[in-house]
Structure formats: C-alpha cells, structure tokens
C-alpha cells in the first residue's frame, strides 16, 4: 500500500528583488526557496493515514526540479516520508504545470500508488493546475480543494469534503485510487523532530531522468507548454496613502479615521 505525495519547492521574493534581464522572471539571486505551504498539509495527511493503519503503508514524496529541490525533499523525509523521488532534466526548464502533470503521470505509472495527493496550488505561481492536470493525464478519479478526508489505506472508496466559497463545504464520495488536491487547514502539520532530521539523511532520494520515465524530450519544456511567458513586470503601486511618524502619531491619525467613520 502506497501513497504518493507530489510536492514543489516554491520561491518567495527577497525584499528588493529585480526582474531578470530577459524580462521573463525574477533574477534567481532574489529568490528564497522553501517547501510549498500546501504540501506540508498533504504530506501530513499521508502521514496520518500511515500512522493510523495497522498494515504497511509507504509514503513516497516526488518533486520536479534541479538539485536544490533535494533540500525540500529532505524536509519531507525528516517529517516521516519513507523515500523521495526527484525528476529532472535540463530540458524540463521553463515547463508549465501541464508538463509537470505529464511527468508526474509517468512517475505514478511507475510507482503504482493507491492514492496521490498534491497541494491545491503553489504559493509562487499559483496556477492551481498540476494536481488536477495529473488526474486528467491518468484518467483517475479526482477531487479538488479537499479539506477533510476519510480514507483507509487500500480502500476502493474515500469520503471527503471539498471546500467551496463562502464558508460552505460539500461532502463527496469517490472511487480510489484517486488524485486529491489538499487544502490548507485539513490538519495541523507536524514539525520535523531532531530524530527525524537525523534519519532523513539515511533515506534515499532517487533522481529520475526523462529516459527513466519514458518521456520524450520533445514533450517537455516551454515549447510543449500550454502557455508562454511574454513578460514579467512590477505592477504600479497601489493607492494606499501612507501614515508616517512615530507610533503615537500614527495611532492618533488612526483614531481620527475611526471617529470620522463612526460619526459618518
């Protein structure tokens, strides 16, 4: 019995960032990398299922990216994942989420898990597309924005809730194996223990190339993607009027704003 958790190493921007000379992305010198916030929750959900099961459940994490991604995979291993896979080839550079879905589908066919989790979205590019794109590639049952899950390892059916807009959820039952995109708040992610961090170093991260997955180089990269970046730019600043001065002066102005509102 196996659960595959697809994770992403995301980038946040340093305070004073610059756009790259080609105008297509932020200069990598200004990017701070970390595991995507949503993926903490999907990994935790897999770990909860593993720990609640009397049978043998293997949790495998997979990510696509260059060597720096190993750091994020180590973090997952430190939290209890059994092993990690990293997919990379220089030809993948510039791929969109549809290509990521195609690559992950090849990994799923190879690993044959009973359940696949992915985050609802990534915090950097936020396409919110990879998980459901993966389900489409596989032709598997799927549900998006899952905020509660009842699933016994290996079961043919799962019950879940998907989080809708406006404080409403909907209950759903679906057949398994399935691909679920996991929403924030579904659980409380753990921190890695010192013991876990130590053990993570002994766990394997296998690197898979296109050949290992049987994926042709012509089906990855920007030319195989469904969109192409034309330019990235810093949008004009918003309209907030800044209140300057000492905290006391700023607070005095806030009191004026509050009294003005209440008087209105």
């Amino acid at each position, binding site marked *: 019995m196996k659960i595959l958790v697809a994770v992403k190493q995301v980038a946040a921007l340093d305070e004073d960032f610059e756009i790259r000379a080609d105008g297509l992305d932020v200069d990598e010198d200004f990017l701070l990398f970390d595991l995507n916030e949503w993926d903490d929750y999907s990994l935790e959900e897999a770990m909860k299922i593993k720990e609640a099961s009397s049978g043998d459940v293997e949790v495998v994490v997979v990510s696509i990216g260059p060597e720096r991604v190993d750091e994020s995979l180590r973090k997952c291993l430190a939290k209890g994942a059994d092993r990690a896979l990293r997919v990379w080839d220089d030809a993948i550079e510039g791929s969109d989420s549809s290509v990521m879905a195609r690559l992950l589908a090849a990994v799923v066919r190879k690993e044959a898990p009973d359940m696949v989790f992915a985050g609802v979205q990534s915090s950097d590019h936020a396409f919110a597309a990879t998980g459901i794109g993966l389900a489409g590639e596989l032709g598997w049952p799927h*549900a998006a924005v899952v905020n509660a899950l009842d699933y016994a390892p290996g079961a043919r059916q799962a019950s879940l*809730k998907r989080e809708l807009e406006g404080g409403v*959820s*909907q209950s759903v*039952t679906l057949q398994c194996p399935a691909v679920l995109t996991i929403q924030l708040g579904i659980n409380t992610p753990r921190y890695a223990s010192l013991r876990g961090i130590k053990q993570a170093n002994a766990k394997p991260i296998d690197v898979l190339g296109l050949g290992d997955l049987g994926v042709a180089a012509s089906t990855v990269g920007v030319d195989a993607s469904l969109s192409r970046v034309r330019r990235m730019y810093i949008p004009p600043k918003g309209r*907030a*009027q800044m209140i300057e001065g000492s*905290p006391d002066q700023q*607070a005095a102005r806030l009191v004026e704003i509050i009294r003005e509102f209440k008087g209105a």
Partner: protein
Amino acid sequence: MSKILVIAEHRQGELRPVSLELIAAAQGLGGPITVAVIGANAQAFVPALSLPGVDEILTVASPFAEFNPEVQEAAVAALITELAPAVVLLGHTVDSLAYAAALAGKLGLGFASDVFKIECQGSDLVATRAAYSQKVNVEVDFPGKATVLLTVRPAVFKPAEGSASPATRSIAAPAVTTTSAPGEYIEIASGNDIDITTVDFILSVGRGVGEEANIQQFRDLAETAGATLCCSRPIADSGWLPKSRQVGQSGKVASNCGLYLAMGISGAIQHLAGMKHVGTIVAVNTDPEASIFSVAKYGIVGDMFEIGEALKEALEG
C-alpha cells in the same frame, strides 16, 4: 476576435455572480459570445444570462442538478469540439479547479488560470496573471493554440448588465460514467457567534500575530475600538479564532463593512476577495511591499503590536 465560449456557474439553484463577470470579460474581447450552462435545471438560468452581447445561450441537460467535475469536463469538451471557439472563459473558482486543468491538458488547449486581464495584441491573445504573492504581474500568450482556456479571477470584471433576447438552444450532456458522487452542502456553523457579514467595523488580524497568546491584545483593542475581531485564514486554521470569523474567499465576505483595519495581514488574493470592496481599508504591516497596501486607503509600515498598543492608549485617552 472569433468565437468566445463562456461557461456559466451555478450552485444550489443560484447563478453564481462570476457568470456575469465572465460575460463582461467576453464583451470586452468583442467576438460572438456563446454562454453555456450545464445541469439538470439549466433552463432556469436563461433569463439571468440573457444579456446584451450574448449571441446564443446553450442549455446543456445533464442528469445532475449540481456540479459534477466529470460531467462538466465532458460537456465543455464536447462544446469546444462543436463550436471551435478561440477563447473559453471559466471562473477561477473551486468548481473550475476540479476540471479545467484536466480538460486543457487532454485537448492540448492554450491555458492560463486566475487571469485578471485579457486583451488582443495584434493577432495574439494575451492574458495577465500575478505571481509571487501578487508582487509581480505576468503576461502570457499561447503560440499556435487555436483554442485558449482561461479561468478568470472573480470580482475583477464588473458584472454585465441589461437585457437582450439571445437565441437559445438545448442539448444533452455527453453520457459519462462518474467515479465521484457529490453530496450535501455543509455551511460553517457560526453557532452563537456574531455574523461577520453584518458588521460595519472590523479589526482583522493575520499571520503577523505570531502566536495564540497574542490574540488577546487585539481582542482587547477591538473591544476598546468598538470593532469586531476577525482574521485571515492561517489564524482560523490554527484554531486561534473560530472559522466563522475568517474573512475571505473560503470564509465570509465583509459585506456590510465600511472600515476594515487589517493588522499583520499580507493580503493573499483569497483574503482580498472578502474585503477589498470595503470603503475604508487601513493596513498595518511590517512589509512595505505587502499586497494589502494595494487595496488599502491608508497604510502604516510598522509593527502591529506597537501600533496596536499606541492605538489602544490613544482611544482610551
């Protein structure tokens, strides 16, 4: 611009507001517009969708009254095959998240999600979306794609208005063997707690509050100021305030709020969805680049604890 296909959304018998926004976005592109609505009771939505600029309304009869991702995907795929539209517009909503990417991948369509600007530059369709916590905008195009599927950010385009009498046509959704069964809707219970959609002055705290013990300072401040204490998602997810106090896309919309004081909230797009309409927004954040400042009327770059304390003293003094 050639043909545009708009997929209207509904839930529990109500047309979702994004549907009219999508029609407005389509009007802006200036091509013939077909609006499709899928469901067992699709006919019921025809009057509300009969808007100027809409050339045809297609009601697609399916066995299910409510959204089902597999039925929706198959129905939209069939419409794309039949109509060969240049652009297909969906809302960037939870329903679309359940099938849009799968559909785009299978049909090899041009695809971008959460777009808030769509334009034609020469013969190219160009869509704009944001990245890195709204700190940059990204223009994307779709070389060689005959059909482009876009999911459009809600509450950006002003809903289409007016009335017209477009042609209507009824078709059947393709038969699909479904692997999932959507069930009942569950509303977050607010219990005896206040309904935040009704209040006019909100003090809202976000991740900047740091830890649960720090909530009390802002509870006290809210009481002194006569505001209702609310929060962004991470605070409710952590259980530091009840889910019924969460403002945003998956929480509640501050519908009747006139003054919104956001402290330690960076302004994720999902949070902005619940409050950016408020007349007077004041944001306090340590990060001068935080996107909350792009919707705020007044901003303070500073420490929420320090400002909070000074504000409480000033209100008491």
